[in-house]
């Protein structure tokens, strides 16, 4: 077995352990929340007997260790149980939402990179000058804004005032089929994607700048310059490629944020993804959905970390996997 294959195998085993721990923590944290899912159904008509029956329907009357055992057993079979508030299999509920989140998170990652890399490089060129300061201050400020507020402002301006993009949703019920459907989906994607991207710029720009500034002081950059290599080439080829390694790490780590950061964005934009699902399930104490959704998030983060590690090798041939 090659060093790389061994490495992947070892990392995969670690990943399984990580996911098991994440699943366990999720299970117990949810049980630590005060109240229970049935309290959501409280009503002047609710009697304690009906309440007890509802708890029993969802297996919530059993002792916690038994609930936990059942949860692990079902999870091993890929079964996350039944949503308490939606009364549908959690697998289906998540399968309905996941494609939308992947579309939104994926496209906003691309947009974020397309904006943040040029901006980051610009700040290096303009280090210490006004434009550098403005870019840094602006991207950090954008990241500190309250997403629901930004989202409503953006919808009001681009949706209601200019009428360029629809207000909320992922598709129009009357949006047609085929190509017109594709166009409809893209039109609905633009605003949430934009909000998610601009509020996420800060860390990417700052990190790229820091790591570029560091790399620019390396000997090989000085050598490059001394050889008379054009400054543009020094920055883009010599320095940038080396600065990318820590940058890729950050991108990988922040992917989890991108998906979880979509909770507010998706909710305000009425976008039918995992984020909105998590928001509503938290309110309703829908344990099974939350367990499923958080496990999906854990899987995403673990998977992307693995991919990130493999990308290092492509970026820097000196990195050798295995012992």
């Amino acid at each position, binding site marked *: 077995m090659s060093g790389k294959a061994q490495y992947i195998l070892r990392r995969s085993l670690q990943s399984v352990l990580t996911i098991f721990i994440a699943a366990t923590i999720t299970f117990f944290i949810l049980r630590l*929340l*005060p*109240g229970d899912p049935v*309290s*959501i*159904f*409280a*009503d*002047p*008509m*609710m*009697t*304690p*007997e*009906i*309440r007890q*029956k*509802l708890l029993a*329907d969802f297996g919530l009357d059993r002792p916690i260790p038994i609930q936990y055992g059942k949860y692990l057993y079902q999870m091993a079979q890929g079964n996350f149980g*039944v949503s308490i*508030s*939606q*009364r*549908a*299999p959690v697998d*289906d*509920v998540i399968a*309905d*939402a996941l494609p939308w989140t992947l579309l939104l998170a994926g496209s906003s990652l691309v947009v974020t990179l397309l904006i943040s890399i040029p901006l980051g490089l610009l700040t290096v060129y303009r280090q210490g000058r006004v434009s550098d300061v403005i870019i840094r201050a602006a991207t950090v400020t954008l990241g500190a804004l*309250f997403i*629901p*507020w930004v*989202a*409503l402002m953006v*919808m*009001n301006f681009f*949706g*209601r005032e200019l*009428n360029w993009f*629809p*207000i*909320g*949703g*992922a*598709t129009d*019920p*009357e949006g047609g089929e085929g190509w017109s459907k594709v166009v409809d989906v893209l039109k609905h994607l633009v605003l949430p994607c934009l909000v998610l991207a601009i509020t996420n710029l800060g860390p990417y720009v700052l990190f790229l700048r820091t790591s570029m500034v560091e790399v620019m002081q390396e000997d090989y950059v000085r050598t490059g310059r001394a050889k008379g290599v054009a400054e543009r080439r020094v920055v883009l080829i010599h320095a940038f490629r080396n600065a990318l390694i820590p940058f890729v790490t950050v991108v990988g780590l922040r992917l989890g944020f991108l998906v979880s950061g979509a909770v*507010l964005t998706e*909710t*305000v*934009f*009425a976008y*039918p993804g995992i984020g*909105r*699902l998590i*928001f*509503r399930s938290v*309110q309703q*104490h829908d344990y099974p959905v939350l367990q499923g959704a958080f496990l999906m998030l854990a899987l995403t983060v673990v998977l992307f970390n693995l991919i990130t590690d493999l990308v290092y090798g492509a970026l820097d041939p000196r990195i050798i996997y295995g012992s």
Partner: protein
Amino acid sequence: MASSSDRPINLLHSSLQATMRRRDAMRWLTFAGGGASIAALTLPPYSVLAQTPAATPDPNIQQGGTFQMGIADISSLNPFVSNSQQDSLILNLLYPALGTLDKDSNRLPYVAESWETSADGLTNTFKLRRGFLWEDGTPLTAHDVKFTCDLEIEQKFTFKTAILAPVASIEAPDDYTVVFTMSQPVATFIYDVAFWFRIMPKHIWETIEDPKTYTNDQPIGAGPFRLTRWEKTQFVELEARKDYNYPPIGRPPYVDKLIYRTYPDVNTLVLAFQNGDIDAVPQGVPVDSVDAIKQDPAFEVVPNASTGYNYVAPNIAENPHLANVKVRQAMAMGIDKDVIVQFVFKGNAGKMTTVVSPVLTAWHNPDVEDWPFDIEAGRQLLEESGYTDTDDSGFVNVPEEHGGGDLELRLSFAANEPASQKVAAILKENWEKMGVSIPLDAQESNALYQRVRFDRDYELYLAGWGIVDNPSRHYYSTFHPSQYNPGSNNLTGIDNDEFAALIEETHFNADLEATQEGVFKIQEIDHEIVPVFALYYPEFNLAYNRRWQGFQVLPGSLLGIASWHSMVNIHQTAS
């Protein structure tokens, strides 16, 4: 027909709108369910059913078009387990019930042709109409009604099952007769069962292995609309059944299609409405957006009062001071309800006297007057009962046998609801002026729920009920001592023999008029003994675009402008 989830408002407050900015959580979630049954009980009960209106299609009415509404997230379209108002708006158009109501709250027969209660109240008989067909062509019969109610009793799907608790057996002696035999008479039973339970097709549901988790993606109904598309978490599309000619309407709907788009954030919904993307907001717009919408001539805003109410529950069972009726009476005189209504709700609310809302005209006793807002009189009553400010602290001291310290009562409420915070601040100011120290205790709503209902660890609890459709049942479940159990709705533990006896005798009674008279009398005692401090009922602002007309607004109801009757009657405004 109406399912409901009246949630206590403290929970409502944990809603999305509460955690995001400027939301009006109550607005969304208090809606919870219900509907027809509520309106059903707002008017005196009819012994004779109103006549079916003749079906005369008006040639001047513009037919066709797609009517779009914005609603909160749908929970389930399985009518047995569905638990929110928005689900009900849709399900009521797909599945018929035994009875329905028109805009004047006349009880109209729907699938039932007539109903009758025996003199002893133990036998309730429904006669069904012939000719109703399920979408697949199977006739709708008494066996479907029996099947539906039997399954409800067997499975105890939701709190609604409580309505069927006094039923001993259900029989269908022939295809068009259903007989409910009771173990205890309940005068309101026939109305409860006619309006709360949608009839389900037996031939479909008897083969379903687990009706609790069945998602019912392709419902087979017998209503004026059929479900054609359901994009989960996005929208539901219903199509009018152009072959529909059943009573009480006797013709198909005018509109071609209905689309319900879901918005988890009410602010986005309002923006979409203002932009013309959707034609109506059947669950109401928040107080802060109402003025902008009212000013726009394109929109019509319909005020619609909730049947629920907000209150402060005193922990009578556990707190010796609150157990003293004089203290409660004094505190009742210390609440400035006008300020609450005008300042917190900008007039979009009404004052409560007892727990029976004035909205429920058939039940509300108008002769019971509220305690006057009179801090001096309240203070005097406290002094007469041994609560005097002996140490000049500004707060009255409790009698020596209780330690003699300042009278201090913690006021707990859900932290994530802006309205509750304001109301709590007003109460604190009022009561402290009277000499009662009121520390405010803002809590996460679920934690508070646990503390109040199970641990009984509270002194004063500010909360609300979303819907109270039947005050007789409400008094029984909320104030009868037999219901003071962990987790139950009886929060205060009030134990007054006269009050309890009257509640019991009123609720289990064969005669509807006697039940209503009983509720009138109960309110007199309610006023006297102050089991809770009833504060106000919220009002919702339902909005629609004037491109459409023909709405039949159900008064005091939560189906409001999107009821069954509205949806079969709306049509485009000729331009």
